[in-house]
């Protein structure tokens, strides 16, 4: 059930899939302080470059999240634990553990979603759900009816307001959100017109950080869909984006980031937190 990530590592004290390392640490069968994280990172970079052109964006981003958490965890563990008498330090330690546990939980549900997809997409058994034959329908016991028009209007009002609630604009309370899907459409249109543009030019008119982030994410989606290619002459140099999608205006499967991105990166209102 655990999807093999394909990424295996060889350390002094551990050899095997990255997922297994994670599993051992979580079960306290291996001490995170004994893991040379720089070696893990080196191996991952080697793995990525060996599979050039073939590597999986989601795998890479997942690695980043996991590695960052491990780093956090390790930093916390390396604190002299015997002498923690500051309550804040202790809370910090617990927070790190909690973060790690959350990460594992998130990963587990992510994996389970693959299994669910298989179950939902498998051959279906359709339930028998046919109208009752008229001679049986006649047998239905007489309704006991006590519903007044006022009851009905209340029920209708309840149903209609439920429909509206998720769509209610909160624009006056929070900054409006940026849709990655919309930005993808805008970015594609510009690139189709110009052939190639620098990233700098693509975000020149962005008036918020959120818009820049959304356009960057939309480029990643377009890249995954092979609609664009990237060129970067020097490390940290200008990034040139080239349209490779032809005139095809077909559906781009941009996965919307739920609720869109907050315009201001620090706007905690839009992101669930504890």
């Amino acid at each position: 059930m655990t999807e093999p990530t394909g990424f295996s590592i060889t350390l002094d004290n551990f050899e095997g899939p990255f997922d297994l390392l994670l599993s051992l640490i979580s079960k306290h069968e291996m001490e995170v302080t004994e893991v040379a994280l720089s070696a893990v990172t080196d191996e991952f970079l080697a793995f990525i470059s060996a599979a050039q052109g073939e590597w999986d964006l989601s795998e890479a981003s997942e690695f980043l999240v996991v590695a960052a958490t491990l780093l956090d965890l390790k930093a916390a563990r390396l604190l002299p634990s015997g002498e923690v008498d500051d309550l804040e330090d202790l809370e910090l330690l617990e927070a790190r553990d909690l973060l790690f546990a959350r990460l594992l939980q998130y990963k587990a549900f992510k994996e389970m979603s693959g299994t669910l997809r298989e179950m939902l997409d498998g051959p279906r058994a359709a339930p028998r759900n046919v109208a009752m034959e008229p001679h049986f329908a006649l047998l239905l016991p007489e309704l006991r009816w006590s519903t007044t028009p006022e009851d009905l209007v209340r029920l209708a009002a309840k149903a209609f307001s439920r429909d509206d609630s998720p769509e209610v604009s909160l624009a006056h309370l929070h900054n409006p959100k940026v849709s990655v899907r919309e930005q993808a459409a805008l970015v594609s249109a510009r690139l189709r017109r110009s052939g190639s543009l620098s990233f700098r030019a693509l975000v020149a008119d962005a008036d918020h950080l959120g818009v820049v982030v959304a356009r960057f994410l939309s480029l990643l989606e377009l890249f995954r869909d092979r609609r664009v290619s990237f060129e970067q002459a020097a490390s940290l140099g200008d990034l040139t984006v080239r349209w490779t999608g032809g005139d095809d205006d077909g559906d781009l499967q941009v996965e919307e980031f739920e609720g869109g991105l907050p315009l201001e990166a620090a706007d905690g209102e839009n992101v669930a937190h504890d």
Partner: protein
Amino acid sequence: MTDVRVRGALEAVLMVVDEPVSPEDLAVALEQPTEIVLETLRAMRDEYADPDSPRGFELREVDGGWRFYSSRLYADVVGRFIIEGQTSKLSQAALETLAVIAYRQPVTRGQVSQIRGVNVDSVMKTLLARGLVAEVGEFGGALQYGTTTEFLERTGMSSLDELPALAPYLPDLDDIEAR
């Protein structure tokens, strides 16, 4: 296709369709000659009705189409099940669906489902079986539903104009936005 597979495919389709299906339509779906389909349907009908071991379902030809029905041999048990099993009050879900239809008619099943946020297929069947709603038209290939005279009689109204205005019951918009 083997005989068993032809029979199986026919049973599968006929078990879940609501309306009688013509042998021609079945033949197209099965990619089999119509005669084979018709022959198999007749064999199935006879098999289910075998006097030594009659099934509780029967396959009947109605107006040139075929459909599974509950066998008349067991009508007494089915009748008892319907009378005793069904509650004589509409469920909350059914009432809410009815209210939505009353105010939004003519309305399609999909629209009702979207408003209520849940699948309403089985609740709609109940309301149809109770004669409280009926098909009143078609829009973009989807059936539209509305309330019936029976509904008016039940609620004691002489026409839909007597439905109370919805607006005063809707939550104040400012209240919602302030949440």
